[in-house]
């Protein structure tokens, strides 16, 4: 096949590109420039798409022996990922920008452009697997569960999965680093990237404050009684206990947790730990990574964080909302996060959580 390898400058995408070449594909390396004002250097594990990263990607392509180009996706990234991230926080939800990037950039803008140019698909260094079954190509967890990235890929449609190649899903990260070393790739020991790539300082709250302002608002209890003040509702997270700055103690001295963020009234609602419990979640904007979920309840697992636990549940889809009923309640679940349904290790699909109870 003729493939575009998306090369971030990290070890994973470098080995993925090399493995695609070994598998006999005709591969071209592409580094996505996602910032119109890139930083010169990486600082630790933060950020990607610095000038240093694009250099690392180019050197990896040289060692692998494939052509290399840079594609400017800064505008698409800003509109589809950064703006979405800000809008979601402004609406009181907790978004996952990596998932949005896969949905709108890597397997949309890049894959579409690649296909139009005559390529068959896009290779990435994600830890996930695909399998060909009777119902087509399906998406599965990686063998290395600690590195599994199927959660952030759960927004891919069947058609996008058709064009996605994940060569690393059968290997552990430790072995990928050893393989990179053996292949002579200089990025073999480069630190993993964490955090949000477009917030290079790592200070998400500060970054949000700079862009959304820091309007003071009330912190109220579940009866609506004001018990404190906050400096910008979006810097709080559902389930957060520390840093609330509350001076009025509860009657029994038990701690308070953030239960709800109401952006319109700029209010943060706090309450007891048991009030955080969620037993049913519903999600909108459902995407199926294989056969569509129906109104017929099914048993499976739901995962609500990138590296969270898979929780046993019953799930169904009413044509508008995807519902998951948990066997055991979960504490602290923010709207805006993705709920990803698994059937064993197969990704069934996902939706954006809009209601919890």
């Amino acid at each position: 096949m003729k493939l575009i390898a998306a090369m971030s400058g990290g070890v994973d995408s470098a080995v993925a590109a090399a493995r695609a070449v070994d598998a006999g594909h005709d591969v071209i390396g592409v580094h996505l420039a996602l910032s119109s004002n890139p930083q010169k250097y990486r600082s630790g594990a933060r950020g990607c798409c610095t000038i240093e990263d694009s250099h690392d990607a180019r050197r990896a392509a040289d060692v692998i022996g494939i052509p290399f180009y840079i594609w400017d996706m800064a505008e698409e990234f800003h509109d589809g990922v950064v703006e979405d991230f800000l809008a979601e926080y402004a609406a009181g939800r907790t978004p996952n920008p990596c998932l949005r990037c896969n949905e709108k950039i890597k397997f949309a803008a890049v894959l579409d452009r690649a296909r139009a140019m005559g390529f068959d698909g896009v290779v990435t260094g994600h830890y996930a697997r695909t399998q060909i079954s009777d119902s087509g190509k399906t998406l599965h967890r990686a063998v290395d569960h600690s590195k599994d990235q199927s959660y952030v890929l759960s927004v891919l449609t069947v058609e996008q999965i058709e064009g996605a190649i994940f060569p690393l899903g059968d290997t552990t990260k430790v072995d990928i680093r050893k393989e990179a070393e053996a292949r002579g790739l200089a990025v073999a020991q480069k630190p993993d990237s964490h955090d949000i790539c477009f917030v290079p300082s790592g200070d998400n709250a500060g970054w949000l404050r700079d862009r959304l302002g820091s309007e003071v608002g009330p912190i109220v209890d579940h009866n609506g009684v004001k018990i404190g003040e906050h400096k910008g509702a979006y810097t709080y997270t559902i389930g957060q206990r520390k840093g609330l700055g509350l001076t009025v103690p509860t009657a029994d001295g038990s701690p308070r947790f953030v239960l709800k963020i109401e952006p319109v009234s700029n209010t943060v609602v706090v309450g007891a730990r048991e009030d955080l419990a969620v037993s049913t979640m519903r999600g909108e904007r459902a995407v199926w990574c294989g056969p569509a979920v129906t109104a017929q309840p099914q048993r499976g697992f739901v995962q609500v964080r990138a590296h969270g636990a898979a929780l046993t549940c019953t799930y169904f889809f009413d044509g508008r909302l995807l519902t998951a009923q948990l066997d055991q309640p979960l504490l602290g679940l923010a709207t805006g996060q993705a709920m990803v349904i698994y059937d064993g290790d197969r990704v069934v699909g996902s939706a954006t959580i809009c209601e919890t109870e």
Partner: protein
Amino acid sequence: MVEEALIAMTAQLARLGNPSSLHTHGRATRRTLEDAREVIAKEVGCLPSEVIFTASGTEANNTALKGLYWQGRDKGKHVVVISSIEHHAIVDPAHWLAEHEGAEVIQIPVNADGVIDLEFLTQLVTTRGNEIALISVMHANNETGVIQPIPKVVDIAGEIPVHTDAAQSFKKIPLSFADLGVYAMSLSAHKMGGPLGIGALVLRRAVEIPALLHGGGQEREIRSGTLNAPAIVAFAAAAKSKYYDSAKVSELRDSFIAGITSALPEVIVNGLKADRLPGIVNVTFPGTQSDTLLLLMDAQNISCSTGSACSAGVHEASHVLLAMGHNEVSAQSSLRFSFGATSTHADVDLALSVLPDVITRGRAANLS
């Protein structure tokens, strides 16, 4: 590199001697080097003592621009005039002078064909002539090949020093420092069949400008540093070589333009109505993005260029095309094709045979 230059360079690499040394080996190298200087001087119509060797065309431009500015500033002149289509090796030092040395930079606009506006320059010299430290206008543009009216610039400038970046024109079209009447002119060896890493600033004799590099006092104390004799010898060999046949290259260029405009009538050949260098064709393909086209052409073993890239490697809209009236979108839909001394009709035919499919795919990718 042309064969004569390659032979001259490798032979000189094997010889011992710093041209500034006084012993026999040093004097031998000095002699070879001065022979080379005379050859280059003859080829560009200047005196040997007017040739100052530098390590690149960029260094020659920086030396001229900064040196002539500092010289002018001492006389109370703080305006630097450049054209709006200069190479970054002029644009960036000019802006550096503005940011760090108190210069005011004024850019001469160009018309739709990429030729500078002489009316504008006349007006500027009339109203602010006594403030202008120097005027720098390139001899021919590197992206479009459009040749600029330098003798007219010199006429308008009067006593104001004029510099021209002639890196693109040397060996491609007739070039004479004396006939142009400029104060200073930059050359780059690798643009005319010589090696990388050697250039020259041709600077009128008796004009002394402040140096950028201080040290051993070589090159009229304007450019210190051990002279790179092997590269200089190769530079001269390339300058003397008859390898470049302008008529032949022009004919290839014209057949390419004829082919492309008949196959793809919607394309725009930039600067078509102006006098241009034989080997450069700059084409706008509406509805495409040039980095996509470059990738697809590259896959067919055809190398072409998109304006320029920033330090992160991201393709940017060409300031030259923007100055000619393009917008960001159409400027980013343009490719430069270069034809050289070794190009053939078969190369032109190959490029023409793959272009229609490349453009079709490029348009589809742009819509996706």
